[in-house]
């Protein structure tokens, strides 16, 4: 945890510089309202304003502004706070920056507003992480996910599983709290409950790859023989003529990188030098780099020029699998508007970059290869934070050993060490831990002798 100071007034620009028509400044901390009122055209109105209301006025020498007022306990941080909207011009923004500093506000550290919200109990840890991601994320899908988490969907899902496991734990504990001969017959081991929770948590953990792809952007590399149409497809995705397209094979000598969005997914797209037997020195270097790039990609799009009898695509998938193992791959049968030199092998996606025919199918192919449903509205809850992922994986690992120990009929007290680890890890995800709610469950659902 960063050691933020939490008793002074902070401010930050909440919108991007130079991008939008409006700029919003956020200020937070006790005394914020009074301090800001001293530069405001209608100080009494502001001072008297109730929480969650708007006040319109002018900041002397800066701009006309609309101020949203949050009294202590109400705003995002839970502290007394304001949101000040002014014009989005660079001039207004820098004047406002200066003004707020003069008034005694301190420029907030990254994440400091969220930290204060966490401290005041407004949000829990999973929500705090989500906020962080919204601030970082650029694409739409990513924002939906982060927003869902902010609403507590992740906490709710974790809690559901934790409840399930705490119940199972109480079944185990009740047998440990009473001697063998004191409770009537051994209760059966709660395999089903534990398995259900384990599977659900494993599913959640599995979304981490996808989640982090969405959060950080998926790395997609276009590769193929020279002249296959890689640069053309690159431009089609970008909707600009970024990469030089020409009928001369070997046009692209080194890779080109650009950010774009594919079906709402944030993507870093790479156009590369064509793979063919190297003629010139410089190109050989380019091919080496292309291969390195392919190895590090989340998805490899391999293009074949279907009209070129010399493209050499035969058994390409086997060859690639050997050379670049473990990377998700899609094979594209390009230039279908031209007469085909061969019959299309199985598993290829047909495309004509020129006519854009087959482009939609390619996009949905990409989405599913990245392990996502294409409909970004109905998207599933995904894990993006490495911290959460680590805890989930640990928790699933512990539950796996709980189940296998139980199958081997190992002692319950040993099993409960692993159960506790699983529960602890889930507790860490939400930043809270328990241990005494188990006893309560024991007494509410069991009758035990002395």
């Amino acid at each position, binding site marked *: *945890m960063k*050691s*933020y*100071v*939490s*008793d002074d007034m902070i401010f930050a620009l909440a919108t991007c510089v130079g991008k939008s028509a409006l700029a919003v400044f956020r200020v937070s901390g*006790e005394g914020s309202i009074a301090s800001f009122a001293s530069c405001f055209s209608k100080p009494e109105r502001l001072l008297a304003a109730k929480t969650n209301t708007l006040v319109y006025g002018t900041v002397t020498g800066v701009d006309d502004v609309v101020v949203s007022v949050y009294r202590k306990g109400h705003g995002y941080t*839970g*502290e007394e706070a304001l949101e000040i909207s002014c014009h989005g011009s660079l001039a207004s923004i820098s004047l406002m920056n200066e003004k707020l500093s003069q008034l005694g506000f301190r420029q907030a550290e990254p994440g400091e507003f969220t930290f*204060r919200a*966490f*401290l*005041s*109990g407004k949000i*829990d840890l999973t929500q705090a992480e989500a906020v962080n991601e919204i601030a970082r994320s650029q694409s739409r899908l990513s924002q939906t996910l982060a927003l869902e988490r902010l609403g507590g969907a992740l906490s709710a899902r974790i809690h559901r599983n934790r409840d399930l496991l705490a119940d199972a734990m109480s079944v185990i*504990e009740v047998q*440990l*709290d*009473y*001697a*063998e*001969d*004191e409770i*009537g017959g051994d209760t059966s081991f709660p395999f089903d409950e534990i398995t259900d929770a384990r599977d659900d948590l494993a599913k959640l953990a599995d979304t981490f790859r996808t989640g982090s792809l969405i959060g950080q952007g998926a790395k997609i590399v276009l590769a193929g023989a020279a002249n296959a149409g890689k640069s053309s497809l690159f431009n089609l995705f970008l909707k600009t003529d970024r990469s030089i397209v020409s009928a001369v094979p070997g046009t692209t000598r080194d890779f080109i990188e650009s950010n774009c969005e594919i079906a709402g997914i944030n993507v870093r797209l790479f156009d590369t030098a064509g793979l063919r037997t190297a003629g010139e020195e410089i190109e050989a270097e380019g091919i080496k780099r292309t291969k390195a790039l392919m190895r590090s990609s989340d998805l490899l799009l391999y293009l074949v020029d279907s009209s070129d009898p010399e493209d050499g695509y035969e058994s390409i998938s086997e060859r690639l699998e050997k050379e670049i193992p473990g990377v998700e791959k899609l094979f594209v049968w390009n230039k279908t508007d031209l007469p085909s030199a061969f019959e299309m092998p199985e598993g290829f996606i047909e495309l004509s970059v020129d006519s854009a025919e087959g482009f939609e199918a390619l996009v949905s192919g990409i989405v599913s290869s990245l392990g996502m449903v294409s409909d970004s509205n109905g998207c599933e809850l995904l894990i993006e934070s490495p911290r959460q992922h680590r805890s989930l994986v640990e928790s699933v690992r512990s539950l796996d050993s709980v189940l296998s120990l139980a199958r*081997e009929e*190992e*002692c*319950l*007290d*040993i099993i*409960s*060490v*692993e159960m*506790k*680890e699983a529960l*602890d890890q889930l507790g860490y995800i939400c*930043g*809270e*831990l328990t*241990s*005494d709610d*188990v*006893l309560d469950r*024991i*007494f509410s659902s069991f*009758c*035990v*002798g*002395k």
Partner: protein
Amino acid sequence: MDYDVIVVGGGHAGIEASLAAARTGFRTLMVTQSLDTIGRLSCNPAIGGLAKGNIVREVDAMGGQMGKLIDATLVQYRVLNRRRGPAVQAPRAQADKFSYSRLAKETLEHQQNLTLFMDTVVGLLVEPDGRTVCGITTGRGNRISSKAVVVTTGTFMDGRIFIGEYDAAEGRLGEEGAFGLGDCLRRMGLETARLKTGTCARVDSRSLDFSKMERQDGDDPIEPFSFENHVNSRVQVPCWITYTNERTHKIIFDNISRSPLYGGKIVGKGPRYCPSIEDKVVRFSQRDRHQIFVEPEGSGTVEMYLNGLSSSLPEDVQNDFIHSVEGLENALVMRPAYAVEYDFVFPTQLKLSLECKKYDNLFFAGQTNGTSGYEEAACQGLIAGINAVQKIRGEQPLVISRTEAYTGVLIDDLVTKGTKEPYRMFTSRAEYRLNLRHDTCDLRLTPKAAAFGLCSEQRMANLEKKIDLISDLKQCLLHSKTGGMNAVQALKHPEIDLDKIKDDVPELMNYPEEIRNIVQQDIKYEGYIKREDRQVERFDKLDNLIIPPDFDYRAMEGLSQESREKLEKIAPSNIGQASRISGVRTSDIALLMVYLRRRNG
């Protein structure tokens, strides 16, 4: 000053507190209402059991007496849960209740620096500063001064017993309650409330038909509670098992309105875990039978204890339902079951040292703090006795962590969370059970006791020898082969134990049985013990973040009102304890951590 330490009460907490103070060289006075009832086993005549057996051994490891008392007076001994894992095995013994309390009194009488005195304590003396306790006043008008006072009044403070419509101002059947002290404490501004507990009927063994019951024999040989005693063998008596039936339940159900519990006469809250038979019948109406243990009260008496039939119903109803049980058809009741209601002091008013927050040099221990059980009382008595002495010495109190002993779990739970019902120890209350095994209590705790002068040099030397033997045997196993692997690897297989490999590793048998057992458990569960050690490490981190005693929560901004009030009330001594206070928000704990870090630069 008449004495250094005065201990009020001669029960299991009082015994340990007095001995601990006297043994460390401090002039100690035990004041009790009756010199004839010291160390009574008022409820069932047994010591130990799950988690409780561990506590007895913890007390012994720290120089307490309970383990030695029961070792000398037991008539049946069993290790519970032998089939289960190492963390939840525990010894339990039936005592000859007469010998037990006679030996307890004898031990006290022969203790140097300890004086016994029969009188009823009705008040406390407080220095003119208004916050330092300096003695007691008694029913017969005695004023006795001391540097510290330990209150261990058990169920006697404003005690009242109930049997159906009958009630009496008694702390135990036939023994007058203690009146005056409760009022005094309340006048001093301490909060008290009522708790209720109960005990079972005693019947004449000659009137029972044992042929209709299951016989339960003790284990042989006996692995003693005290680490200073050795494995031995002796003649034991059996216990018996029988069950209630639907007829029993119907009798109880039909007469439930005659129970003072249901009639509203008893206001104190009873324990959920050791409910009276009427509670069990009402709350678990789906169960068609409940188990009853018929236990001998001793070798010199025909009285037998009907464990599981605690009740406060009128005697005629008790007779009826007892007679409905198989084997008890003709049972002759010698003492009826009864409920007892008494005052306890909210333990959240105490520090982890068991000293009162509001009054210096005043300590509380045992049932007075809301616990139930002899063992729970004993471990508190020991800690309170040690800390009374530490206070007089002007030294740091002994605080046992939750990761070291059930004693630590118990005291931390009491002072951090308080209790609304008589608190009984369960293994599930402890987070790290593998660390709290009963056979390793001395390894964990005896060195601590030595630092307080509660452990002889001889004992420390024996402990060191034991530690050496353990590591010797482990080395020996590591270098011995059996079935194509080294013996340590072999032992990790569930079906292999030391007994199976003794032909391959004959040196094994040169080691005492207790050493072999410890080594076997250590090896078998090594992986899990390591895992738990890591958990303990995480846990201890928070417990090691100390909150200064003078910490001002008011000066801390952003703390929620609710959390602030709770933190001020409990005044936790570290972040770990703070995080266990119910109702304090995680985010407030995070805030507290940030503040403390800033304070420390």
